[in-house]
């Protein structure tokens, strides 16, 4: 009986190689694996052999049946997949069905990057109104009426003492009015300047304001914080340059340049061959500002900084016309 099974097995393995299509596959299945197929007849014969041989032969026959089933399944898969290649009924080169691609605005992407870095440093997010009063936008920031510093920012007026904020700095005042130190916030938002529209300036743009007030906050810490920000934002090899400057609400004040990350500081068109790119303004909060919000300037010190999101996005992506951000040309948006 073993021999007989061996023989069937040999034939099975030979014949399965000759199966070429579904029809032959079905004939083959009926012949071997069908209800009246060869394998079943072998099982039928098992009943007739002596009882003591049954376990050995039974086991042998079962193993063959399993093998046969595996071989058959493999063959079936082969024929089914081959069908596509041969039949050419499905043209896989036809393009996929088109879906629209979403994109975040480059300004949002830049802002999110900035936010992420400062949030990781422990800054919280604050916000304030775009229609602002003179007190918060100027006076409490140590810019009294008739002060020449008001010329630094051309203002849109809504009515007497009500303006469109010219910077996000009024959020500093609003936050400090609402709580005692420690204060550690960034305030992103839209600001307005009454300036002629050109490739370099637009009547509105977006800023990120930063403020940290606590005991023992120093200028050296401001430098370190911004250096860390710059390295995270532009690359770990960049350097910063702090230039003395003037803002009425900080003292000492500085304008900050980052070494050109496009040419590595050697000089190129973007950095106007100077090797430096101006990216933000900062300084230690002026004691007069603390007076306005009722903080004790002997006990607390603080730093503040502000940067333009458009400016940073333009540098980062090499965009040479600020108006592109507000035109929302899909061919532009698609690039980011």
């Amino acid at each position: 009986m073993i021999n007989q099974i061996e023989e069937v097995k040999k034939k099975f393995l030979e014949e399965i190689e000759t199966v070429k299509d579904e029809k032959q596959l079905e004939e083959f299945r009926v012949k071997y694996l069908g209800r009246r197929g060869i394998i079943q007849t072998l099982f039928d014969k098992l009943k007739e052999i002596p009882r003591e041989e049954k376990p050995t032969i039974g086991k042998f026959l079962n193993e063959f049946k399993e093998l046969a089933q595996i071989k058959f399944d493999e063959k079936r898969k082969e024929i089914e997949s081959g069908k596509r290649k041969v039949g050419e009924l499905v043209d896989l080169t036809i393009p996929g069905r088109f879906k629209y691609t979403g994109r975040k605005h480059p300004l949002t992407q830049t802002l999110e990057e900035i936010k992420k870095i400062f949030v990781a440093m422990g800054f919280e997010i604050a916000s304030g109104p775009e229609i602002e009063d003179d007190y918060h936008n100027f006076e409490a920031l140590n810019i009294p009426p008739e002060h020449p510093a008001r010329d630094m920012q051309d203002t849109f007026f809504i009515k007497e003492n009500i303006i469109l904020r010219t910077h996000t700095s009024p959020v500093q005042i609003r936050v400090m009015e609402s709580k005692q130190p420690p204060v550690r916030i960034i305030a992103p938002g839209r600001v307005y300047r009454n300036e002629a529209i050109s490739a370099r300036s637009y009547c509105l743009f977006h800023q990120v304001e930063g403020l940290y007030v606590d005991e023992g906050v120093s200028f050296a810490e401001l430098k370190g914080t911004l250096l860390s920000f710059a390295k995270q934002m532009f690359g770990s090899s960049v350097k910063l340059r702090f230039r003395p400057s003037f803002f009425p609400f900080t003292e000492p004040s500085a304008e900050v340049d980052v070494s050109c990350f496009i040419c590595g500081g050697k000089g190129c068109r973007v950095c106007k061959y100077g090797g430096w790119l101006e990216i933000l303004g900062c300084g230690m909060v002026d004691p007069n500002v603390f007076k306005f919000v009722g903080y004790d300037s002997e006990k607390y010190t603080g730093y503040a900084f502000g940067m333009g999101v458009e400016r940073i996005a333009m540098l980062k992506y090499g965009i040479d016309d600020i108006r592109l951000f507000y035109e929302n040309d899909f061919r532009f948006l698609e690039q980011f």
Partner: protein
Amino acid sequence: MKISHKWLKNYIDLEAEPEEVKEKLTMLGLEVESVDYPGEKFKNFYVGEVLEVSKHPNADKLTVCRVRVGKDTLQIICGAPNVAAGQKVPVALVGAVIPRNQHDPEGKPFVLTKAKIRGVESYGMICSEFELGLGDDKEGIMVLEPNAQVGQPLAEYFGLDDVIYDISVTPNRPDCLSHIGVARELAVAFGLKLKKPEFKVVESDKRITDYASVEIIDTLNCPRYAARVVLNVKVEPSPKWLQDYLRAVGLRPINNIVDITNFVLYEVGHPLHAFDYDKLAGHKIVVKCANDGEVFITLDGKARVLRKDTLMICDAEKPVAIAGVMGGANTEITDETKNVLIESAYFNPISIRRTSKYLGLSTDASYRFERGADPEAVIWAVNRAAQLMAEIAGGEVLQGVIDVYPVEIKPKVVSLRFSRLNSVIGFEFSQDDVVKILEGLELEILNRDEKSLTVKVPTFRVDIEREIDLIEEVARVYGYDRIPDKMRSVVHFSTEKVKVDFHNFVRERLIGAGFKEVVTNSMLDEEKASLLGENFVKVLNPLSREMSALRTSLIPSALDVVKHNFGYGVKNLKFFEIGKVFRLAFDEDEKPRYVDNYVEEERLLILMTGVAEPVSYDLGERIFDIYDLKGEVENLFRGIFLENYRFIYYSNNSDIAELEIGIEIGGKYAGRLIKVGDEILNKFDIKADIYIAEIDFDLLCKNSRFEERHYIELPRFPSVFRDLAFVVDESVPVGEVENAIKEKAGAVLKSIRLFDIYRGERIGEGKKSVAFSLEILSKEKTLTDEEVNELIQKVVKYVEQKFEAKLRSY
């Protein structure tokens, strides 16, 4: 402000190269915006002398000149009619770039080469004013002064062998608005000594008090007024050196008297004014405010209407100058002027600024006075000018200075604690460094111990009043770059719950759904603002009419985006914006969050137009319709866990919509979905179907269940699906049939989905078949067929009754 390198050298022994000076100034806080080398354009140009002129052998109009330039003598062909032997002329050598080409219609520059002109060689070019870019005269060559030095570089001859720094001076540093001021800063930075010019005024024995008098009525706005009188001046063009200085800093020379006042202004920073003494009635100066509405002609010939707060300089009868801003035409220095009264005063900065602002007139003088002039410079400046007038204009300086100084401005005294300095900056300064820096800035140390020092601040430093101002000075001069970057800090950890960035959450979902984000202008014209919202906010001083109001809706700017993209052939658009809209509060009860009665609200706008997704060759092209928009909105709501909303269907649409569905969230009106109407589209010149949803963003945030997500045990039994199709009247809204099914089926109806609407003969005219797929699920058990059938029967009966519907298939 323009600062000349050559001029600076009068006050410090500056040996540094211009690039180094630029770097130093910038790092002192005097940002150098540009460095200009005006002489560079005259490289390879020299002063030459024409030795001999002879006719060109082959051309009538040309001459062959022999020109001496230094040691060499060159042969140059010249076409100018005025060339003559003995002239000193500007000569360009081979290789020079001629700034303007006389023969080119655009006057483009060109490089001079050796040339053979009609058979005769030419080794250079004698230039006209036009070619040098110095004037418009093309008729002949430029003839230089007879005493010009042959072989001298032309740049040097013109005084252009200089370097001009364009410095942006911050408003707190008016003391740096002069050459001496800038030199003082450089002296500290380079460790040099500042040399202020020393001179002696040679006076006649006639006493000034016999010739003029000064009276200050408004002592608040004019704390000090000094004057000198110079007789018998000869008004004529200034000597070349003086003209060169003024031109170098961008001033136009006028006459020697005016030029001297300008020279002193740019030297020491103190504005002066010269009056024609003989035109001053009563030879008297009175300082007082104008009468409201008074008209005054300034020396630029313009009539200015004055106010009662305009500080004026008057004589015995009439106003003669707007104090600190501009002189009057009536007492202007002219060629006939014989005698001069020089004004040197100190005016209240606020008064000058107010006047300059309302007149819209900013001058070199007002610019300095409104930032704060130096009351102590008054006498030095008037003496300097008088002495120069004696030297240059041959005047006779009368004995004495009139100095009316009713309220003395005393130098400020300020103290600095070393410990405070070190803690604010975060760096241990050496006390000796601190002293050296402050003394270098001419701050006089009055007192010093181991803890602090006290200084007297010179009056030209209007910005130093407090300890923090001294701290800044020390840090600035020491160098910000030498202060370490502290990369560690002691931070108080926050105890506030981290807020979900809901904006980002919504953005990410929409971007995933194929929308691009746009950012648009929040200003627009009033018509568009009023079209889409009430109580719009106007801008008092807009850039243009197109931006004279704040947006009340995101729709107009979204349509601008559509228009722009259509213009470039991009017709299929899906985009969104999250932005603020503005209005005045509707009534007293509405309490705006921040300022006055202005309301700022955030909105989400979604816009779709063009070919619907998926765009494919085989499914048939379809354009977006209102159901695409509705689907996107519902998908977003599901995505952000917003469930308590409902759509509102109106019987008629608002003006702007062809189709409109309202949205209510949490029981409040939250916005709408529209197909934009033709009237609006025509205004924007758009021809396409535009679908827009505009939704209150705050309501989205507040009603999102995102923060309250909570696990609900999964159903342990499988869902059963049943399809139901009803034939109803065409007028029956599908949504109502759906609601009726939901209502009757109750809690076991897990979901319901419309899968077919059919119209056709088999159904009958005016009828439609609507088919739904129902998912039925019980939390308690597996429902039996009987139970499901019973439920379905109940639903069918209800729907049939309610809508006179007929069950079509089940």
